[in-house]
């Protein structure tokens, strides 16, 4: 036991012959916002569902605050807030009644529920809807309420399984904003979130754990994935298909490590992430008058993600 809030030890889940989680070992650091990344069927959701006692593990342990959820789920889930996928609520209840119900379930006092409800509804921007029945809410609104109920009783762990899945762009942005505020405002809070959306993970998380075939591929701080070896790759698009001569001209720039044609773009690798080098590259390329129509940073996380998934096949 490491003393970290979430510790998964040799966790295994089998569905007949199919192994969804394959002796997974993973530790989620205290006060981190960890993104769980992996393709469909990688075992992310299964792992989180075992952690939240929605499914039973075949073998192994999953500790929440030092208590094995596979042995004593009631004690393990105390102090844990969860939003698994897009949960539904009882349509006949209002947000306030829902919070009263969930608060009552987790043993909160009536006054505490009331004061926390006001505060949380404000946080998830649902105050004006507090007395309307949930049956009339949009998916985005319901998801904000889901997030709100997870915050009741000041949990020290929050588990989120694809919390923006199925939401429209506005709904996604609203949830991300709430999560960002939560990350910035809370001192003693560990969040683990599975997601398919790389920019979302990049935007919210400070650590990433890559999972495929039910095993952990890599687990590190986000910087280790987005800025590999301190090399930055810029993608340049011209108003025509780049020629060999265009690539050679860019390669000739002293600070450029490598330039190559990828599809209809030129990928230019430069050392360091200093903004001044980027602007210098842009100015130099502009002065070459090649007809640049777009200049953007390559998604390093996506590249790492694809590489890792490819390697693990």
């Amino acid at each position, binding site marked *: 036991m490491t003393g970290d809030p979430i510790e998964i030890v040799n966790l295994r889940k089998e569905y007949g012959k199919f192994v969804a989680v394959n002796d997974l070992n993973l530790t989620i650091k205290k006060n981190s916002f960890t993104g769980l990344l992996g393709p469909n069927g990688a075992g992310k959701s299964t792992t989180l*569902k075992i952690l*939240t*006692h*929605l*499914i*039973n593990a075949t073998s192994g342990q999953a500790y929440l605050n030092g208590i094995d959820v596979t042995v004593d*789920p*009631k*004690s*393990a*889930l*105390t102090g*844990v807030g*969860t939003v*698994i*996928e*897009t*949960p*539904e*609520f*009882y349509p*006949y*209840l209002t947000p306030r*009644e829902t919070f009263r*119900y*969930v608060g*009552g*379930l*987790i*043993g909160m006092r009536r006054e505490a529920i009331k004061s926390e409800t006001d505060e949380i509804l404000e946080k998830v921007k649902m105050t004006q809807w507090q007395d309307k029945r949930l049956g009339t809410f949009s998916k985005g609104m319901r998801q904000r309420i*889901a997030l709100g*109920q997870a915050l009741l009783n000041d949990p020290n762990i929050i*588990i989120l399984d694809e919390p923006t899945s199925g939401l429209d762009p506005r709904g996604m942005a609203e949830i991300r904003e709430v999560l960002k505020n939560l990350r910035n405002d809370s001192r003693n809070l560990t969040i683990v979130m599975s997601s398919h959306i790389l920019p979302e993970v990049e935007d919210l998380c400070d650590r990433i754990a890559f999972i495929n075939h039910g095993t952990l591929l890599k687990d590190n701080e986000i910087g280790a994935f987005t800025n590999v070896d301190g090399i930055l790759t810029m993608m340049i698009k011209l108003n025509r298909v780049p020629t060999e001569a265009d690539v050679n001209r860019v390669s000739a720039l002293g600070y450029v490590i490598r330039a190559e044609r990828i599809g209809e773009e030129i990928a230019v690798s430069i050392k360091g992430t200093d903004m001044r080098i980027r602007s210098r590259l842009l100015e130099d390329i502009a002065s070459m008058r090649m007809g640049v129509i777009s200049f953007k940073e390559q998604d390093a996380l996506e590249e790492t993600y694809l590489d890792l998934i490819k390697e693990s096949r």
Partner: protein
Amino acid sequence: MMVGDFRQICTITKNELIKSVRGKKFLVSLLIVLLVFGLITLLGYATNDWNPKFTTANIISTYMSYIGVVTLLIVALMSSVALVSEFEERTALILFTRPVRRTSIFIGKIFSCLIIEALIILVYYAIVTAFSLYHVGEVSDKMLTSYVLCVLYAFAASGVAFVISAFFKKSSVCTIISLLVLILVVPVITGMLKGDTWFMLDTAGNSIITCVPEYVKAYNETVDMFTAVISNAADVLKGFASPEMQELAKSLNEVILSGGLSTLDPNVIAMIVTMDQFFLSIPVDNITDMADVLNMMVGSDMMKKIDNPNVLLEGSVLIIWGITGYLIAWCKFVRREF
């Protein structure tokens, strides 16, 4: 179970009650109760079946005969969806991820279903009681026993509905299967069993009405009346087909053919000839069979008199049915994965 668990059970029960009362199923169940009462009353008035000299037995046999089916309908509507709805409507994602034992959730759901079902059944009993007081001026003193047995019947049927709810994935399927099992399958099995079926759900459920002595008395009087009518009819038929009667008809026919009746009035002759032809044309074998069938009817279960049931035994049977159902459902529910 600890104090915390008990508090959680209360919280879940309360929420389930709010959910039920605000939901459509509660209203539909209430409507069924009112509709059944209204239809029986209206049909009674429309067919002029209402005797101004009402008795408690009339009221009981008219209205309480349907309470068993009404109870099963209510149970199929309310209990059959209690467990499955958490999975189908994805509310389990909130409820099951909380520090609450599945057993506490299960018990809370049993309590809420029972309370709601007992309330709806109470509405029916209250209306029948009020009607009885209005028309007869009194009510059977076994009405309360009948109500308690009816609630126990709902408890038992609910156990069966919970089993179905724990195993299936769709609420609508659970409701239909519960209805089929409770209203069709169980009685068919009971019908196929030989001997006393006191241990069967529907037989024990019959005690709701047979525990009322006025009903038993009125029912047995009706059985006596029917038995007497059918027995007499069988005797008459057998008499027609008896060898003596056939012999007599043949002798009479010989007299007619020999002209021995020629001195009589022609109308009298015609009548005697017609009667003689009738007796001679009787299919003796068929008539004997018909008489046997009638005698079999008299001895069948259909014409059996009923006794006041052993309320304690039948109540226990219902409780055992309920507990067995809940135990099976619980075993599945606590292990069921989302």
